[in-house]
């Protein structure tokens, strides 16, 4: 009996769950009475929930296996891709999205707008790292260093030379790109785990330098009073400047998506993907490995630098504690969760990873637990990411005629 086997399986899974969650769900130490409270009811709940969820999943899987026509096809034809494929639907979809994005701050509180700005910053950071990790396949665990370079560029240029947001923005982005090249040179020969370790080290070096080189960066106490971007010399109130920054970010996100999209569908984008697929074959086909890798590092870092400047302007205060390894991990999670190399995926990934913890605040202490569980489940059931990349298509129909 297959159904009986499924029930047995689900029962076993439920028992495991009860066992694994036992320390946090059942045992509770009461520090005042110095006793241990055994919350057996929780164990029952965990057991029952995991049993039914597991059973439902197994049955659904069986059902899908018997009716293959129901399941999504394997070529990544997800719902969003189907919409984006159809040019009319795509225009409508993007139009609605843009309208929603523009109207959002007028309906939301400035607190919510602020969260959305953070989310949009992470969208751009994710898209930047997506070039390095998703397309070129270079595992970079120190991406936050470039973010820090951008932020400190603005903070220091303002502190010493009184430069404004708009002058610092290109400088911060370019300095970060330069930083990307500086990191890229020594690691040209490295791949995979080795590269990950070196980039991790690079990220830490930048953070530690900022923390300890007091004369340069004011150390752990950070730099305060960084101005928000001005609007043609007008002074804006706090709410207005948040609104303004929000629209700046919307423009940035659109510009980034545009540029990254074009890069991917270009000669250099193909070279990045080829580099990810097979480095040796890539060279043997005439691709300059060094140039391609450095371009990936520089372009990835460029966006991070720009976002660093925006971040400094948003918080008006920065210190090295904002640029820890955890930050790199979050950006990397965005890319992996969204789907390596997929632009739509990374945008969704960033929004989910930044907004979910914010809105899960209601669950307060279980917030990070839920967050972790979501990541684990994602990796089990959809390792290719939320919205994996689709194959690029080229206009082959009109290739036969030789018009220029």
């Amino acid at each position, binding site marked *: 009996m297959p159904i009986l086997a499924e029930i047995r399986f689900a029962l076993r899974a439920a028992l495991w769950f009860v066992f694994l969650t036992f320390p946090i769900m059942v045992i509770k130490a009461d520090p005042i009475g110095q006793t241990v409270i055994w919350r057996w009811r929780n164990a029952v709940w965990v057991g029952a929930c995991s049993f039914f969820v597991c059973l439902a999943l197994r049955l659904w899987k069986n059902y899908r296996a018997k009716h293959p026509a129901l399941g999504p096809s394997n070529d990544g034809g997800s719902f969003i891709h189907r919409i984006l494929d159809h040019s009319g639907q795509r225009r409508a979809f993007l139009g609605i999205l843009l309208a929603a994005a523009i109207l959002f701050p007028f309906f939301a509180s400035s607190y919510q707008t602020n969260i959305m700005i953070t989310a949009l910053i992470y969208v751009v950071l994710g898209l930047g790292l997506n070039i390095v990790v998703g397309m070129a396949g270079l595992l970079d665990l120190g991406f936050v260093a470039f973010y820090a370079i951008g932020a400190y560029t603005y903070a220091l240029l303002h502190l010493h030379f009184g430069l404004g947001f708009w002058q610092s923005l290109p400088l911060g982005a370019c300095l970060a790109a330069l930083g990307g090249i500086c990191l890229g040179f020594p690691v040209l020969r490295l791949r995979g785990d080795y590269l990950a370790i070196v980039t991790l080290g690079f990220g830490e070096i930048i953070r530690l330098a900022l923390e300890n080189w007091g004369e340069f960066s004011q150390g752990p106490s950070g730099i305060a009073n960084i101005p928000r971007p001005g609007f043609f010399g007008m002074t804006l109130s706090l709410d207005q400047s948040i609104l303004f920054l929000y629209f700046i970010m919307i423009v940035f996100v659109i510009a980034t998506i545009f*540029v990254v999209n*074009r*890069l991917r569908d*270009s*000669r*250099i*984008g*193909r*070279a990045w*993907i*080829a580099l990810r*697929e*097979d480095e*040796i*074959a*890539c*060279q*043997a*086909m*005439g*691709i*300059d*490995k060094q140039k391609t890798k450095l*371009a990936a590092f520089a*372009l990835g870092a460029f966006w991070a630098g720009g976002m660093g400047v925006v971040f400094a302007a948003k918080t008006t205060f920065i210190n090295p504690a904002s640029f820890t390894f955890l930050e790199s991990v979050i950006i990397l999670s965005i890319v992996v969760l969204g789907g390596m190399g997929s632009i739509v995926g990374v945008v969704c990934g960033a929004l989910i990873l930044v907004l979910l913890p914010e809105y899960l605040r209601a669950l307060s202490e279980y917030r990070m637990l839920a967050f972790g569980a979501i990541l684990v489940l994602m990796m089990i059931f959809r390792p290719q990411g939320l919205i994996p990349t689709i*194959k*690029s*298509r*080229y*206009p*082959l129909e009109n*290739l036969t005629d030789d018009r*220029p």
Partner: protein
Amino acid sequence: MSQPILQVSALRMTFGGVQALAGVDLEVGEGEIVALIGPNGAGKTTLFNCLTGMYTPTGGDIILNAPGKKPCHLNGLKPNKIVERGLARTFQNIRLFGRMTVLENVMIGRHCRAKSFILGAIFRPPATRREERDITMKSFALLRKVGLADFAGEFADSLSYGAQRRLEIARALATEPALLLLDEPAAGMNPRETVELTRLIQQISADGQAVLLIEHDMKLVMSLSQRIYVMDYGKRIACGPPAAIRANPAVIKAYLGEEDDAAA
């Protein structure tokens, strides 16, 4: 033989104490199909790796004399520079870009014949557009040539084994090589696929393409090549047309061993 396209003289390659190539001489003429055979471990693939810049040879000289270009030394150049000079290869164990489409794989081959970089990619000026169109068009024409046009939009790793081999050849051809190096193109193929491959190589050669191939399938080697080089222990032990090689005692010895060797 006309002016040779590839001229290898006294090529040496040592790994520590092991001498993988002990002074190899080799020549490939224009439009020729030349085969390189020898027992396993004879140094054939090492020779290929030296030619294509994967290894830097310890000694000797490699001169490529691409038609319409100045002759140039290839030793010590980076692999991608060598491809630019006009030497392209396929691999013994297939090395395609699995998660790229069949068409994109060939387009990568066109990479070294195009120029646009970051700014071109972002702003797409007419020159870049023309270049992209040219890349797509030439790549698709090559797919047609190797009979893979119907699979242009599929991922390369979803192709059958024989088709993957043909795709590797198309990708190498996309670099417009003066000389095409094929490393065991028929390895692991069934007889029908081998026949198809033989026909494909003949067709490529008919277009004037010079080919140097390593192969163990003697039927393919004998039917295709105009000249054969035989290597053993990093040295050339014989060279000549197929009929002469078949009768050469040194070759027979290398492949079958001497009687007292066999007894040992």
